[in-house]
Each structure stands twice: as structure tokens, then as C-alpha cells.
């Protein structure tokens, strides 16, 4: 046997020994979101973002020299189905789960996780919520094992209505939202805040429609048109905002849009088609065109790899904080991670300070109001090949986003 074969044998032997050990050592994160049906486009974009970030981390040697692995589960945007998927993830030995789409789903998961952790001491599960923004989750239903990385719905509405306040061209507003806890949170908060800040504004419509089930919004658009509204407020996301914008484009509806998620997959295409140049606004925690080099590098790399823009800057924050917490705790034990996470301060994706509030596990960060339209020379990123992109028109500093909480958190006794 020559030296070459010997080396080969040794390499094979080494592989046999090291492979199973390595597999055990990966840090698994369960990604539980809709990957089929009306929420699929949103879920898919989220999954790609997580995978991209995990790949980046692994390329740098992982965390505690262990690889990060994202395992995806399709919850069909259904609370019942989500619990089955959470159980599946737990059975597969995963103890960190992340979910975002659908506050109904999030409420079910946070309840489930709280109960599971009570009953299975030593095997706790950590729940990182990256997008479900119903305020209840960090108030009445708050829970030690749940962390929210997006600003909650009230914070977003506060910022949006502050921006609307001085705009005297707004006279008639139409509310259209999805018929579930989050949609109702948006509409009631919009009514409350508008009547306080701009009592002269007339609310000419207050619509709720089934969640991710409508495939043709033409009847709704006809109704909006008939109401004579000049502005729309909507918390719609995923297919519900993309198809709404598309139907509005088809009918040629010329109004201003104040949205949470107009940037959802398919949304920008609809806006461009209607020619609503800088008349569609979105409130979110970041933007591609903010001139901050570290963020734009990530944006560029993600676009090069998956051909999608970064819809979730908060996911970058989430992964950054999770990694820091694991490194500080020198452990992947959910309880130890949670204790490190709960009062963490970080530099967020687009620069600036953000912090996790220990009292309710709500993350606070600078928020931006952006408008979609033609780009200036110093704004390099467009969306969905429309040639149009997002421009930041107002920034709300972290301190100004802090709202009180009624959370009375039950902490584990240790």
C-alpha cells in the first residue's frame, strides 16, 4: 500500500469519525412559517433571509465553533398546524424556534411554549418572534420565553399617524385590513390615533376581509373608489397587499397608501404599474437605501445570492443578538440565552442603538417611514426590477418608539 492510499484511508476514517459528531454539534433553529398558500411568498423570503445569514455565520466559523442550521417547517399559516410543527421541531431535538407571520399563530405558539417549558424543566424552548406584531404578545400575553424583534403594531401606527398629522391633503381615509387579531389591532388603533391627532379627517371606510384567501380584490377596490377616499391605511401583508395593490393598479386607483408592508413580494410591481410615484408609504425598521456601509454590504450580498431585497432587517438583528447571547452565555441552553437576550443593547442593521426591554421582551429600534418611487443617484437599490425603490422620508429615534407595557412577566424561579 502506497503512501497515497494510506492518506486516503486515513481521510476516509477521519470522515467516518468526525461526521456524526459534527452533525450533533450544529445549532439548529426551527423556522416555522407559511411555505404554501397565500402566505408562501412572505414565508419563502423569510426562509431565504435566515439561510443567507446562517451561511454567512458558518463561513466565519459558526458560533462557539459550531455550525448553525436552519430547519424549515410549513405551518400553512394555521395556528393548529403550527403547534404540530413546533412539536415536530422539539421532537427533532430543536430548542430554538423562530416564527413571524400571523399574530394568531404567534399567540398559539407563545402559549404552547410557555406550557411546554413549565412541564419540561431542563428542556425549555426559546421562541424568537420576528414579525408578529399584535401588541397583546408583549402585553397581556407576554411570556419569558418569547422575544419580539419587530416593533409592535401600536408603535408603527403611532409613527405613521404622526407623519400623517401635518399633511393637510389627507381628508378622507379608508381602512382595509385582514380579519384577525392583527388586522383588528391596526384598525382600532388607526381610528383612535387619527381622531386624537386629526379629528377633521373623515374615515370613509373600515373594511376587514378574510386572511390570505382573496384572489381578486377588484370588488374591494371598486368600493374604495366609490367612497371617495384620498388615502388608505392598511396592515395587509404578503399576498393580501400585493394583490390589493395589483387590483388598484388595474382599476387605476389614485390614492396615497399608508402601509405596514407594501414592500411584500409583488407589492412594488403593483405600485409601479399604477405610477404612484412616492405616494406609497411603509413603516419599517430599515431600508436598503440608507447610506450605511455595513448594511448595504449585506443587502448587496443577499441580492447577489437570492435576487431578493432584504425584507427583514430585523432578522439580521435577531441573528446578531442570538449569536451574541450564545457567545456570552457560552451555552445554547435556552434559559441561559434568554437571560442574556433580555436586556441586550446592540447596534442595529441600519446603524443606531436598539435595546431589548426586559419587562416585556419587546425590542426597540429606530423606525423609518419610507416612500416608494423614482430613485436619486445616491440610492442604488430598486425593488423587483421596477427601477423604483424606497426612500427614507422620516426617522423615529429609538427613544421615541418606547410605549408602556402592562406585561407582568412570570420568570423561571432559578
Amino acid at each position, binding site marked *: 500500500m502506497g503512501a497515497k492510499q494510506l492518506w486516503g484511508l486515513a481521510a476516509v476514517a477521519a470522515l467516518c469519525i468526525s461526521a456524526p459528531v459534527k452533525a450533533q454539534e450544529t445549532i439548529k433553529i426551527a423556522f416555522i412559517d407559511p*411555505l*404554501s*398558500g*397565500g402566505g*408562501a*411568498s412572505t414565508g*419563502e423570503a423569510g426562509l431565504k433571509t435566515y439561510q443567507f445569514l446562517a451561511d454567512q455565520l458558518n463561513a466565519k466559523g459558526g458560533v462557539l465553533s459550531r455550525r448553525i442550521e436552519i430547519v424549515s417547517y*410549513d405551518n400553512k399559516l394555521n395556528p393548529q398546524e403550527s403547534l404540530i410543527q413546533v412539536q415536530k421541531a422539539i421532537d427533532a431535538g430543536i430548542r430554538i424556534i423562530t416564527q413571524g407571520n400571523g399574530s394568531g399563530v404567534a399567540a398559539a405558539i407563545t402559549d404552547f411554549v410557555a406550557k411546554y417549558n413549565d412541564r419540561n424543566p431542563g428542556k425549555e424552548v426559546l421562541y424568537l418572534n420576528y414579525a408578529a406584531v399584535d401588541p397583546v404578545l408583549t402585553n397581556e400575553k407576554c411570556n419569558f420565553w418569547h422575544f419580539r424583534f419587530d416593533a409592535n403594531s401600536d408603535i408603527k401606527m403611532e409613527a405613521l399617524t404622526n407623519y400623517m398629522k401635518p399633511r393637510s391633503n389627507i381628508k378622507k381615509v379608508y381602512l382595509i385590513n385582514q*380579519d384577525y387579531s392583527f388586522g383588528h389591532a391596526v384598525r382600532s388603533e388607526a381610528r383612535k390615533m387619527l381622531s386624537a391627532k386629526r379629528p377633521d379627517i373623515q374615515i370613509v371606510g373600515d*373594511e*376587514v*376581509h*378574510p386572511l390570505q*384567501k382573496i*384572489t*381578486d380584490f*377588484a*370588488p*374591494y377596490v*371598486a*368600493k374604495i*373608489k*366609490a367612497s371617495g377616499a384620498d388615502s388608505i391605511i392598511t396592515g395587509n401583508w404578503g*399576498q393580501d397587499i400585493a*394583490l390589493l395593490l395589483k387590483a388598484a393598479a*388595474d*382599476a*387605476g*386607483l389614485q390614492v396615497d397608501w399608508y402601509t405596514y408592508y407594501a414592500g411584500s413580494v409583488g407589492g412594488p410591481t403593483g405600485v409601479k404599474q399604477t405610477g404612484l410615484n412616492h405616494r406609497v408609504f411603509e413603516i419599517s425598521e430599515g431600508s436598503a437605501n440608507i447610506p450605511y456601509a455595513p448594511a448595504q454590504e449585506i443587502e448587496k450580498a443577499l441580492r447577489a445570492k437570492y435576487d431578493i431585497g432584504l425584507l427583514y432587517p430585523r432578522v439580521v438583528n435577531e441573528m446578531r443578538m442570538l449569536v451574541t447571547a450564545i457567545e456570552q452565555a457560552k451555552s445554547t441552553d435556552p434559559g441561559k440565552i434568554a437571560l442574556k437576550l433580555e436586556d441586550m443593547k446592540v447596534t442595529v442593521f441600519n446603524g443606531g442603538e436598539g435595546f431589548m426591554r426586559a419587562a416585556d421582551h419587546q425590542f426597540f429600534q429606530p423606525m423609518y417611514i419610507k416612500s416608494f418611487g423614482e430613485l436619486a443617484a445616491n440610492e442604488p437599490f430598486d425593488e423587483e426590477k421596477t427601477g423604483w425603490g424606497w426612500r427614507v422620508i422620516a426617522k423615529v429615534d429609538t427613544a421615541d418608539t418606547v410605549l408602556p407595557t402592562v406585561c407582568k412577566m412570570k420568570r423561571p424561579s432559578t
Partner: protein
Amino acid sequence: MLELVIISILNGVQFGMLLFLMASGLTLIFSMMGVLNFAHASFYMLGAFFGFQIARWLGFWPALLIAPALVGIIGALVERYGLRNVHRQGHVPELLFTFGLAYVIEEVVQMIWGKAPVDFRVPALLDFPAFTIFTTNYPAYKLLMLLTSAGIFLVLFIVLTRTRIGLVIQAALSHPHMVAHLGHNVPLVFMSVFGVGSALAAIAGVIAGPALVTQSNMAGLLGPILFVVVVVGGLGSLAGAFAASLLIGLVQTFAVSVNTSLADVFAFAHVTPSPGSILGDLWTVTLAQIAPILPYLLLVMVLILKPTGLWGTRET
């Protein structure tokens, strides 16, 4: 207001005609074989995905012809080698067969095209507003959907009432044994009707694909409404299916634009249940909010009051 009414009529008729394209095949198949074909909406979905794929390779117009033909052949094969064998065991196995088939088709579609929506676009040629009513644009593509469905309805109507083939089909609907004794090949008639019914559903799929959303749950979204159409119209009645399709299309579209709630209806009586109670919630729900369940409400009412359906002659 007039603008809203006209636009709603256009939208409602267009959705109704689309429903009819599918319901016509379903109701014909039912009246011939006595089987409610659960997989019918799956053929609609297959049409949309085939259309998407062929439009990629050859363009939209060839897709509009080829995809329905392919689905029609698949439908005929399903009848010939699947249903006909199961037929001997009676109706329940047939029902289960189509039920299973719907799942198989959905899984296959997910395996090939994935679970997320595919990017099936309106052809550039038709991507412009056809006309403007007051201030609302009506897209040219929707006009195409309307005209295609109306054209097929006319052809179907003429074939069934004015030709010899139509005569045989109509006879086979009610007296299959008699027709067979007269020397007609009834199994062939069954197979052709199943094939053509599937092809009609597929046409609906190809034209609806770009306007609605082409994804693997589209059969599930539309299937239940289809049964409502067929039952409300009267099983086996083509005219009934046509009327019920339009009715449901219009009901759904108009209900969305009506904000009336029980509170408004009973406003004159000055009764208001306390807000927050169950009755209080019901009191303020608007017709627009319950628009999606109205067809099912109609289904239940029809089954209670006139089980034969509005135009049907036989018990459902």
C-alpha cells in the same frame, strides 16, 4: 354610486362566467355518472399550471389551446382507466376515488412547481386598460376572460341543444340503458364528456391563472364554491349551473360593497344588545364582512327549501 354598481356588475358577471366554465363540466359529469367529481377543481388547477409552463415555452396563446387539450386527455384517461373500473363497485368508491385523485394531483403539482405561487403574468399584449367607466379602468385581460367564457357558453349551448351529439348526451343523461340499446357507445360518450368537462375546467384555469393567483392551493380555494354552484343551480341542469354561477358571482361581488349590518336593519326599533356580548358582535358585523360565507348560506337555504336546486328536476 352608479360607477360602483356598473363596476360590480362587470366584476360579478366575469367571476360568475369563470365559475360557469367549471360548473358546466362538473354538472354534466354528475348527471351522467351520478358522481360528484371532487377532483374537478384540480383539473382547473392543472390547467393553470400547464398554461403557465407552456406560456413560458411557447407563449400565452398556444398555452390557451394546448393546456386544455392536455388536461382533457388526462381527464379522459382518468375516466377510462380509473373511474370506469371503480364504477362497478358503486357510487361510494367512485366518490372516494375522485376525492383521492384531488389529493394526488395537488401533491404532484407541489412536487413539480412547489408550494409558492408561480409568476404567471398577463400577456403583454393585453396588459392595458380596455375602457374607462367614469374614472375606473377595466383591464383588457378581464374583458378577454369575460368574452372567452361567454363564447364557450354559447358553443356548449349550441352543441347540446342543436346537434346530434348533444341529443345523444342529453338522452344518456337520463336514460343511459335505453341509449345503449339503441346502439350508441355509452362508455365512449361518458369518456368524452369527462374529457371535455376537464378541458373546460382547464380553460378556466389558463385564463384565471394570470388574473388570480396560480398556486397549489387554488383548487382548494375554488372547489367548495363550485359545489355550491352545482347544488344551487340544480344537479345536472346546465341552465341552472349558468344561472347559479352568475348569481353567486354577483352576490359575492355586491355583498363586498354593502356595509349594512343588523344594527342598521333594526335601527328603527331602537334595540341594541350590549357591545361585547356575542349578540353585540353579530349585531355590528356588516354584510361585506360575511361576503365570503354568503354562498354557503345560500347552499344551506336551498337544500332546506328546495332540495332539487333552483332549476333542477332531481333530488340532490
